[in-house]
Each structure stands twice: as structure tokens, then as C-alpha cells.
């Protein structure tokens, strides 16, 4: 709560880090996005009754392997291991010289904390409340997952965790940006993490929104989503820090908004009122017109309800100037609390490398709309402004706008 607030102060993205079902770092993910390699497959690391039946998009490493990369104990929650790896990559990528002298924060999102360990603890605990290894439940809270990563990175100026279901890390990113605008921090590593758990798999399964094949976002014959896991972070910096960097920042976070659908705990309103409100408010904040947006990274889960609501909102806001668009969940599955972070990284890379990613497996575009997501990779595009959508349970809808740095 210092003074010197200027909400129009630009905030830059100086570094990106990611671990996802299509790669263990930025370079590998970029390679997969360019070659069209999706990350879904049969369940390999999660053990579940549904392992032969429901495909998932897992990070292709065991907990032992992740722990070795993260430099942490293999008893650590997978959610925290993913977070540590991606956040560290982002910080190294930003390559900020005098980081120790700066006020650095960590704002991370997740939806179920250390549930991957808790659900194992409960097997013994339910038989006898004195049973179950406490180390498996000590980091159950969402905030503990954030602290494990923050402590590993040595960050303590400001630490926070946001959990608004599938929009969590989009909210984390722009909350981080606001802390910089209010001159409370100079640098914020912001994004989110979530690992595959039986809890979420069964939860989404009871809602009957898991595709038994590979998901087909925005296809007329879509059958639901594939659960994914991963972590994605961006390093947000102030103008002053951006000016001191040896390399050019990826882009600017030029707009953001959080709105609520206020329609149903899990379902989106048919007209996508929350998503429309979030998209239009983010656009307004960026000072752009609909025709300025070059690419929309859609929330695009592949469920009947989401894609219809989101598409309706896109139509209402953009018609007749449709930007290119795609759902990269056709590559990564739905990484839940990590998805806003993962897709913010993809958005920054789209601007830096002039890429539009394909919406995989799209055969029959939704009959309700005049637009059609891209089905092939486009290279050498002029991508100046990208909108990234993240919508979730509880009606939480957030949109971010990333813009190329002028000049």
C-alpha cells in the first residue's frame, strides 16, 4: 500500500518458463507446438481405476525424475515439483542481473494443492485416524505448494496463492502486474501449477465431461475435455527493470479483466455473459479495438457447454473482424489451475516468434458460428496483440491481452 500508483504504468514479460504434457521446458513445448505433437495418451504416472479408459495429458516424467530436475525430495507433491521447475526456468530466462536488490514476489495459482499426496494419505487415514504418513498431508494446502517453490527460489518479498478454479493463474498473472503498478514490487513471477490427481480426474468424470478420445475443442462433434497437468510462469517486470535488461522483453501485459458469469456453479451461461464481459473489459483496458487482436488463445476446453458459451461471446465481441484463434488445450489437455500460466507462455511465444498455433483434430467446425479456428501452424505472422482466455467453475472468467512492445 505504498503511494505512487499508476495503473497505466506498463508491465513487461521478461521471462517465461513451462513444463507441460508437450515438453519439459520452453524449447521442447515450442518444438511440439510447431510440429503438431499433442501430449495426450494412456495414463502412465497416475494410477486410477480409469487408467485404460480415460486418456490424459501427463508431463512425461515420474516424480523421481521431476524431483531430480527440481533438486527436491521425491516425496514432494508433484504440483510443487512442476511449479519449481517452470518458475525457475522463467526466472533464469528473464536473466535479471541485480535480482537480490529488487523487490521480487511470487504469485502462484493451483486448484487442489498437494492433493496428489493427500489422496494417498486418506487410504490409510480412513481406516484409522492415527494412520497415514503425516508428510503426505503436511503440504496439502494450496499455499504450501507455493511456499515450497518460493523458498527454493529464495523469494520472500511477497508471496500469494490464488485459486479460482480454471481461471486461477490468469488471475495470478494480473494480480502480480497490479502489485508492480502499485510500486509494491519490481519483479513478480506469476502463473500456476496443477498436477494430475485421482480427485480431479474422478471429479470431472462424474460431471461426464471427459472425452474418451483425444479432445476436439470447437469441433461440432466434441465430446469433452482431456485432463492435463503442468506449470507455466511469466516473469513480470516494471519499466525500470525492463530498461535494465540485456535482452528485449517478450511483450507487454496490456490488458486484463476478471468478471463473473453468475449463472451456475459449474456451467457457463449460454450467451457467455461472463466471458464476454471479461474479454471486452480486457480489450478496453488495452486501448485496442476488436480488429487489433491478431490471435485469441481460446479457453477452448472441448466441452459442449464451454465452447458454445465462449464462441458466442467471441462472436458478439469480434463479429465481423474475427482474429485467428485456436485452443492449445488440443495439445496440452486442460491443465486447470496451470492453464492460464501455460497459455500466457504460449501467447508470449506467439508474439516473439510470429506463430499461430493450430487447433488440433478440428474436423467439423461448430455449426453455430461463422468463424473457424486455425487448423495448421502459421509462421511468419505479424502477431502484435494476443488475447488469452481462462474461464472456470464458479463462473470465474478472466482474459489477458499481451502486446508486442512498440519500436
Amino acid at each position: 500500500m505504498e503511494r505512487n500508483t499508476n495503473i497505466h504504468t506498463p508491465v513487461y514479460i521478461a521471462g517465461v518458463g513451462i513444463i507441460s504434457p508437450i515438453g519439459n521446458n520452453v524449447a521442447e513445448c515450442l518444438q511440439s507446438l510447431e510440429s503438431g505433437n499433442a501430449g495426450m495418451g494412456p495414463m502412465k504416472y497416475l494410477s486410477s481405476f480409469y487408467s485404460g479408459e480415460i486418456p490424459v495429458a501427463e508431463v512425461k516424467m515420474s516424480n523421481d525424475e521431476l524431483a531430480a530436475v527440481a533438486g527436491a525430495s521425491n516425496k514432494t507433491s508433484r504440483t510443487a515439483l512442476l511449479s519449481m521447475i517452470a518458475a525457475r526456468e522463467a526466472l533464469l530466462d528473464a536473466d535479471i542481473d541485480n535480482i537480490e536488490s529488487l523487490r521480487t514476489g511470487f504469485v502462484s495459482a493451483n486448484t487442489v494443492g498437494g492433493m496428489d499426496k493427500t489422496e494417498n494419505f486418506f487410504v490409510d487415514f480412513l481406516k484409522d485416524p492415527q494412520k497415514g504418513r503425516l508428510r503426505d498431508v503436511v503440504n496439502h494446502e494450496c499455499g504450501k505448494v507455493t511456499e515450497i517453490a518460493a523458498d527454493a527460489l529464495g523469494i520472500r518479498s511477497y508471496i500469494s496463492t490464488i485459486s479460482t478454479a480454471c481461471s486461477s493463474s490468469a488471475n495470478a498473472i494480473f494480480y502480480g502486474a497490479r502489485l508492480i503498478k502499485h510500486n509494491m514490487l519490481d519483479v513478480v513471477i506469476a502463473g500456476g501449477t496443477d498436477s494430475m490427481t485421482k480427485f480431479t480426474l474422478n471429479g470431472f468424470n462424474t460431471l461426464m465431461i471427459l472425452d474418451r478420445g483425444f479432445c476436439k475443442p470447437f469441433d461440432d462433434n466434441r465430446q469433452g475435455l482431456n485432463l492435463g497437468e503442468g506449470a507455466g510462469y511469466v516473469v513480470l517486470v516494471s519499466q525500470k527493470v525492463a530498461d535494465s535488461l540485456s535482452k528485449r522483453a517478450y511483450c507487454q501485459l496490456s490488458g486484463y479483466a476478471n468478471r463473473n458469469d453468475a449463472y451456475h456453479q459449474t456451467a457457463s451461461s449460454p450467451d457467455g455473459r461472463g466471458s464476454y464481459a471479461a474479454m471486452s473489459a480486457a480489450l478496453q483496458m488495452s486501448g485496442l479495438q476488436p480488429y487489433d487482436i491478431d490471435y485469441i488463445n481460446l479457453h477452448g476446453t472441448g466441452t459442449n457447454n464451454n465452447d458454445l458459451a465462449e464462441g458466442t461471446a467471441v462472436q458478439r465481441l469480434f463479429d465481423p473482424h474475427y482474429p485467428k484463434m485456436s485452443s492449445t488445450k488440443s495439445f496440452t489437455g486442460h491443465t486447470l489451475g496451470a492453464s492460464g500460466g501455460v497459455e500466457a507462455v504460449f501467447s508470449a511465444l506467439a508474439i516473439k516468434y510470429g506463430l499461430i498455433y493450430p487447433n488440433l483434430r478440428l474436423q467439423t467446425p461448430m455449426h453455430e458460428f461463422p468463424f473457424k479456428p486455425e487448423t495448421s501452424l502459421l509462421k511468419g505472422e505479424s502477431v502484435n496483440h494476443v488475447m488469452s482466455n481462462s474461464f472456470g467453475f464458479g463462473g470465474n472468467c478472466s482474459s489477458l491481452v499481451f502486446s508486442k512492445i512498440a519500436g
Partner: protein
Amino acid sequence: MIMYIRSAAAISPQNTFGDQPLLADAVEYNNNLLKAIEPDYKTYIDAKLIRRMSRIIRMGVATASQCLQDAGVQQPSAIITGTAYGCLEDTGIFVSRMIEQEEQMLSPTAFIQSTHNTVGAQIALMLQCTNYNNTFVHGAFSFENALLDGVLLLKENEADTVLIGGMDELTKYSHDILKRFGLYKREDISNFGLFNVPTKGTIAGEGAAFFLLADQPSDRDYARLEALSIVYKPKNIEALKEEILRSLESQSVDLNEIDLIIDGRNGDIKNDAIYDEVQKTIFRNKPSLHFKHLCGEYPTAASFALWLAANILKAGEIPPTVANDKVKNIQPQKVLIYNHSQNIHHSVMVLSATDVKKNIH
């Protein structure tokens, strides 16, 4: 910064909810487990919805509803909640059924309501409020983060009224687990004697408290919020003191003006030693009172302290149930709340009385 607390409402293990004299009769507990006293929810929530809601959702939604009603606000420009544990009851139900039924024949209800943003979402749904909606889930920073987010929105002119709440619920499972971590006293004590038993451990609590924060004063205001600081894992006690002082100074707080400290002592001997040290040094032995004998220990207990401070400033006097010899004759004008959890999360909030005094006897 000065922000205005236009209303405050709390459901807690004491009789705090609805139209009641401020903590007139404290409720005694003798089992180290302080459960919230729940009102008849029918006044606040549609009867059909109540059945489906878990306790934390009911507590949160009803408290939010009362808070808005007291503030005379129908649609806040933002709804922000803080909860460390989230919806534990529904989470516990879904996990246990999943294990017991070997992942088959599960119903989605508990899962749907298990997400940490459920209370905020249900409030939005009840109000049909499509505005900003956020949920912070970071241990004993959860409520403070929500409060900070609200302050920032007001400063950005993104909002003029923000509904902010802190809540956590105790369940059988969570209590059993936290007990095994040694969080609670081994011997059963009366909550009234919490500060007279110098042993390890504290007593368990829960509750929900909501506030309507605004950037403009009104004639309903309880108090003004002047400062908010958080400190994460200080290297040592000296570093903690320095960081608190630096942060308060940057927010133009003059410690000389503080006439009452409300601290989060919880009866755990090691935990309370930190309060002793901070109290006798940077807080200069100013008169202090405690609150966790009333609400128990839980990660968002600072929201109960804020409710108490706001009410004391509004009433202009300290209720006997929290008073002690040093504070009983004070009519506080400026109150500092200091809370910490496990020496990991430290927070300070500073409140002042509104300009128009209401305590004209």
C-alpha cells in the same frame, strides 16, 4: 491510504451474528474445539439451496449477505474471499467416497462444491453479480491478501465498494489431522483460561467474517483502514521487527497514536513468545487485548480480529469479555492488530475511529 469499513459481519464460535450487543456473554468451551454458532439460515439463503450447501458455504454466504445489508449495498463492485483450507467438508466427502467406492458410482455434488472459490461464486450467484471475483488461498495470508486486493481495486478506481471475507471451517478429518501435527493442547482446557496455561498447543477454531470496504466515507462506517502489512518467514525476530516498522512507516503510521493493540496470542508457549517480544519492543508495551480465546486458532482468524477491532471503534468501548485491567478504561481511537501463524505468516492491520464519534453517552 485511508479506506472505510462500512460494515462488518461475523459468524464465529461466539454470539456475533445478527443484531446482538457486542460480545455481551462469552461462550465457554471445554474441549479445545470451538465450533461456529450458526444462525437460522432461512432468513439469508433460499431454503432449497441451504440443504445442498456445506457449512463453510452457508456461513460465508449468510455473513456476506448480512454485511451487504448492513452497508446498504446491493451489488458490490468486487467480491474477494480468503480461505486457507477451502471447502474441506466437501473435499473430505469426495476423497473418502472416491477411496471407499474405488472411484465408482460417485456423485458430482461434493466435487463441484469443493473448489476454493465456491463461497465467492455462490455469493455472486445469489446477487447475480458479474463483477470482479477473486479468491486467495495462502495460509494465514489468505484474508490479508483478499483485503489488499480490495484496497488496490479501490485505489485503481476499479471499484467503489468491495465485499471482502475470510473463512475457514473445521471438519472431523481436518481436526484429527491437525491434532496429530501437535497443533492443539493435549489437556482439555476452558477457552476462558487459554492465556493462563503455559503449555504447548492451542485450541481449534473456525468462522467467517465479511467486510464492506469503500473508498468514500459514509455515515454508517465502523472504522477506517489505515495500513496493512504482511511479512513472510522473517529470518529472525530482529528482521521481523524491522520489516514491520519499515512497512508501517511507508504507510505513514505513527505508532505513538496507537492506543490499543489486538494480538493473536493463541496460548501456545512458543508461538506467544513472539508476541511478547514484539509487544515489549516495537509496540512499546501499549495496552493490548487478545481474541483467540473467543474464536480459536485458524488461518483466517485475523478476520475475526478485524471484525472485533471495527466493532470496538464503532462502539467506542471495549466489551468486558475481551477487556483486561490495562485496557478496560480506554476509548480507543487507533487500533493495531498483529497476528502471526507459526512464525511463517505475520500480518499487521491498523484501524482508526471515524471522525464522527458515536459514543456520546
